[in-house]
């Protein structure tokens, strides 16, 4: 079990579905379980894509 902070509240989370989680990791919490670790590289890739769409939009205006 682990303590997971979500929006400032601490939840007890089951770790039965993950390997190699360590304090400080970001996880997806669902119905009392950490169901996945957040992939930082992929998260940044989506943010980069959103930035590109913004850029493209401002170019057209």
């Amino acid at each position, binding site marked *: *079990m682990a303590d997971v902070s979500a*929006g400032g509240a601490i*939840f*007890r*989370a*089951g770790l*039965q*579905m*993950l*390997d190699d989680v360590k304090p400080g990791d*970001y996880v*997806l919490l*669902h*119905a*009392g*379980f950490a*169901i*996945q*670790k*957040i*992939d*930082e590289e*992929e*998260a940044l*890739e*989506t*943010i980069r*894509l*959103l*930035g590109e*769409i*913004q850029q*493209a*939009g*401002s170019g*057209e205006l």
Partner: protein
Amino acid sequence: MKFISEYRDSRSAEAVANAIRHEARRNYTFMEVCGGHTAAIHRFGIPSILPPEIKLLSGPGCPVCVTPLGYVNKAVALSLERDVIITSFGDLIRVPGSSSSLWDAKASGADVRIVISALDAVDLAAANPDKKVVFMGIGFETTAPGTAAAINRAAGEDLKNFCVLSGHKIMPPAMEAVIREGTAIDGFICPGHVATITGSSVFDFIPRKYGLGCVVSGFEPADILLSILMLVRQVNSSAPACEIEYSRVVTAEGNLKAKALMNKVFQPEDSEWRGLGNISLSGLGIHDAFRYYDASVLFDGLTGEEEGEENPSCLCGEVLRGRKRPSDCRLFAKSCTPENPAGACMVSSEGACNAFYRFKKDA
């Protein structure tokens, strides 16, 4: 807040909405399958920034909503048994059964408790050896591994007073049922947390067999808008595919450990869905090896299983199939409200009627 605020940025959302407006060439209807998406779409006001060409329909992905009346009736009957403690996620408790809800049963003295995790129910069983603790296992591939982990732990600890009434279901067969019913859609916004567990590959058959696009989406406004843009592009290029927008948690193969837990504890069985009827192999029954933890075996013959009559005026079933909108129902916001729900779609915060009521009552 890392990994949340970035996807709530209004400039991003606006830019993606503009791109959708710019690229829309016809009318498009997309179904958001997941109740979490339905809630997010209305909470963030997504329809208000979409161009009129885009129509969103809610699908059969609200766990409480699709749980049939017979399950609720059985849960209520169980709660009236001697020395039983019913444990459940909060929203199921208020779903009306034929004669009463778990909430009503609790008011008349039944021991019904809300838990956040299936493991809480196991703890409760360990702390109350003279009681039988029954966990109401409902939901899709997101909650089923948690129920599996709970049963697995109870078996490991040789706990004899814990069992589960499984109403768990899996998503792909219900999506196929919606397509086969002929609901006119151009693609699916696929459930992001289901896919976190199953992997996006469980939706691959939809573009292949039915030529409909699928995008597995996250739950923040920019995620949902980006998924809609990806679907518009798929339709425009006549290239339906299964794509992942929510790549920070979703992969093609999913969470192998969670899937292994599910496969160990559950076996596929036919399952009854409110609105969609019985769908072949769409449910998760408890595997024979774990029969001792199966409430439907332990309490076999319990009365109260009868299907009973659904409220004939309630359009919940039609709403779940994408045939009607909540505001088409004459009970909506009149005799059916979140405080006094007539149907399951008004009870759960993931239900379409509940989301419409809270965020766009006048629409």
